[in-house]
């Protein structure tokens, strides 16, 4: 019996994945459990194992294509058996594909108001669907929720999201691209159609499609900045004692777990401690009220070549510097290699973003929703400061706290930030 390989769901939020590489060719033999292909989700690259043994009969999604979760990507079967028909009774592709694309005909004139139920409008708004393209089946020719959902379902089956996106941008009519029954229109198909249709493209720029991690970051930041009322608090910390502490502890910690203690580790510890004392900062604005989190999971923003990811140190308040430094080192390594698993980056309750290593002295960060605050850390700069009426040179560092004003008021944010300052300037207390 032929086995259909589908795009796996590798995380709670994953809706589609990119086929990075097929590790087997069509016609090659595969064994169950053997690596079959490499998939990139919005966060990570993962090797996916073959679900069955047999011959890799057909690759349905070429390298580079973006495929929805649950969609078929390959068929594994015996050498001689007939291939199953793809796209039928799969639960994903409901409408017959390849035939004339169903468009409600004739299309109403653009100015005409579409009768739709509020529920239908809400779903259409959520999915960015034009109600005019939906065939109404409700009373009095009204578009009801079910119609929109069916339309979304039917639209889903015919092209990959990237193909659809490119087609939209370039004005390619997807219905004009012929495809065998059951097969999806891919990015390649659209690009080929473009080549055929247009004259030599004289491009003065290139477009990187919103996809993968870039798309997640883009969507999330727009949403956060628009929906979360931010305010910012900045203060300066004398890092002299914290640096001394690091000097003292670093060799011992290195001996214990082979990892260098970083300023970030000390910051995580200080923030965790301050969060214990200010639980309201460790919360999020929920639909019904303020959701105060019982666990303190601190995220550390890690820059990647093509994006940004925030791995999470769980229960940071209950961990010592030895443990924190070990975990951060591991997570940063995994993040840079694109090997983070959802468990490594989900459920954060507070985030720290440090751009000191890029010589940034001060900046304000956008909150990592649904968290309520983020700490932006600048470079430690030696500068003259006044201590007891004397000008002395001290290593100073600027901290900027972005707060969600729905949850955190100025005074609370200020108290919390001042507490971090106190802990960093007298770090011994932090170790208690």
């Amino acid at each position, binding site marked *: 019996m032929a086995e259909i390989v589908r795009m796996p769901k590798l995380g709670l939020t994953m809706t589609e994945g990119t086929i990075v590489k097929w590790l087997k060719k069509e016609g090659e033999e595969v064994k169950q459990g053997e690596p079959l292909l490499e998939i990139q989700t919005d966060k990570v690259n993962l090797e996916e194992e073959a679900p069955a043994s047999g011959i890799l009969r057909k690759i349905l999604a070429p390298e580079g294509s973006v495929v929805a979760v649950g969609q078929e990507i390959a068929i594994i079967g015996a050498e001689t058996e007939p291939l199953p028909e793809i796209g039928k009774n799969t639960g994903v592709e409901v409408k017959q594909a390849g035939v004339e694309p169903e468009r409600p005909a004739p299309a109403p004139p653009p100015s005409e108001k579409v009768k739709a*139920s509020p*529920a239908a409008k*809400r779903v259409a708004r959520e999915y960015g669907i034009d109600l005019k393209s939906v065939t109404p089946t*409700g009373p009095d020719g*009204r578009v009801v*929720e079910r119609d929109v959902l069916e339309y979304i379902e039917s639209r889903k089956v015919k092209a990959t999201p990237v193909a659809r996106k490119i087609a939209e941008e370039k004005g390619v009519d997807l219905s004009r691209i012929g495809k065998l029954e059951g097969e999806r229109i891919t990015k390649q198909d659209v690009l080929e159609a473009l080549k055929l249709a247009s004259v030599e493209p004289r491009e003065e720029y290139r477009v990187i499609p919103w996809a993968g991690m870039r798309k997640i970051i883009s969507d999330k930041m727009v949403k956060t900045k628009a929906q979360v009322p931010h305010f910012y608090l900045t203060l300066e910390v004398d890092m002299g004692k914290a640096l001394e502490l690091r000097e003292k502890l670093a060799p011992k910690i290195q001996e214990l777990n082979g990892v260098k203690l970083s300023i970030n580790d000390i910051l995580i510890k200080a923030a965790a401690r301050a969060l214990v004392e200010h639980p309201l900062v460790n919360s999020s604005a929920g639909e019904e009220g303020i959701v105060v989190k019982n666990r303190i999971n601190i995220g550390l923003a890690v820059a990647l070549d093509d994006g940004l990811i925030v791995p999470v140190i769980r229960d940071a308040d209950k961990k010592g510097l030895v443990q924190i430094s070990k975990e951060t080192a591991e997570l940063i390594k995994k993040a840079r290699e694109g090997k983070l698993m959802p468990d490594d980056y989900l459920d954060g309750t507070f985030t720290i973003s440090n751009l000191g290593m890029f010589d940034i002295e001060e900046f304000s960060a956008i909150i990592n929703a649904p968290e309520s605050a983020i700490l932006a850390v600048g470079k430690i700069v030696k500068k003259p400061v006044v201590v007891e009426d004397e000008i002395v040179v001290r290593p100073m560092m600027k901290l900027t706290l972005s707060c969600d004003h729905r949850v955190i008021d100025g005074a609370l944010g200020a108290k919390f930030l001042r507490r971090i300052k106190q802990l960093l300037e007298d770090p011994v207390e932090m170790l208690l």
Partner: protein
Amino acid sequence: MAEKLYIDALREGLREEMQRDESVFLLGEDIGIYGGAFGVTRGLIDEFGEERVIDTPISEQAIVGMAVGAALSGMRPIAEIMFFDFLTLAMDQLINQGAKIRYMFGGKAKVPMVVRAPMGSGTGAAAQHSQSFPGVFAHFPGLKVVIPSTPYDVKGLIKAAIRDDNPVVFAEHKLLYRVKGEVPDEDYVLPLGKADVKRKGRDITIVAGSIMVIRALEAAKELEKEGIDVEVIDPRTLKPLDMRTIIDSVKKTGRVLIVEDDPMSFGWGAEVAAGIAGSEAFDYLDAPVKRLAGLDIPIPYNPNLERHAVPQVENIVEAVRELLR
């Protein structure tokens, strides 16, 4: 749990509160030896005597006015009005006096009284003895309005009404007196302002009050055969009105039918409909809010016409089908 009639559960509630609190007393026309026009107070005079079960002259204004005065001076009167229709005679005492005094005295005076009355059509009592208009009282600030639909509810709610420090209009539907249901023997009180989900369902919400709860549940049984899963919400009190429960239900089902015994125009169903339209449930509606209510006519004497004057089970079934078409 024992099965009891609505009327017996109601009497049990009255009796228990009279036993519990000496300041509780009854007054009304023929409520003593005769036991009230429908028999609600039957036997209570033997137990509590003429001082606490007071037969009054035929003057609704005097009955309610006396109740207001007694309540102000520390008693907890329960006034029975023989037919809900006659409450119009006591409007000034109820609305201009009873409902406002606590406010006008800056909270220093309380008016802990209940006005009970049987309402509704279906008994051939003609135009002046068959009306339902509890919504009218819900319009006036200072009054609470209760429309219990089951024996269990009527006992728990009459006790809450008696213990409340504000005037409460307690509207009993005549056809409900003979309805049976489970009523626990122990003392229990149901909160005013909390709706009850009488039946859970996913396809459509019916918001029904008083006698219409019974009809909506029957309709739901009928519709179940067609695969339609109806949720029935009984607001139980019109004021305070528990919109939260209604909104949550509509968000779940996307469709709503409001069924009331009162005449349609300016009725409480409009209040519910507006509450839904103005809430976040609006975005979950998959059909316009629909209302079924009494016709805008005086209740006819002719039994066939009388039946047509207010929603029946088949009307509810048909309206649901229409909404789900």
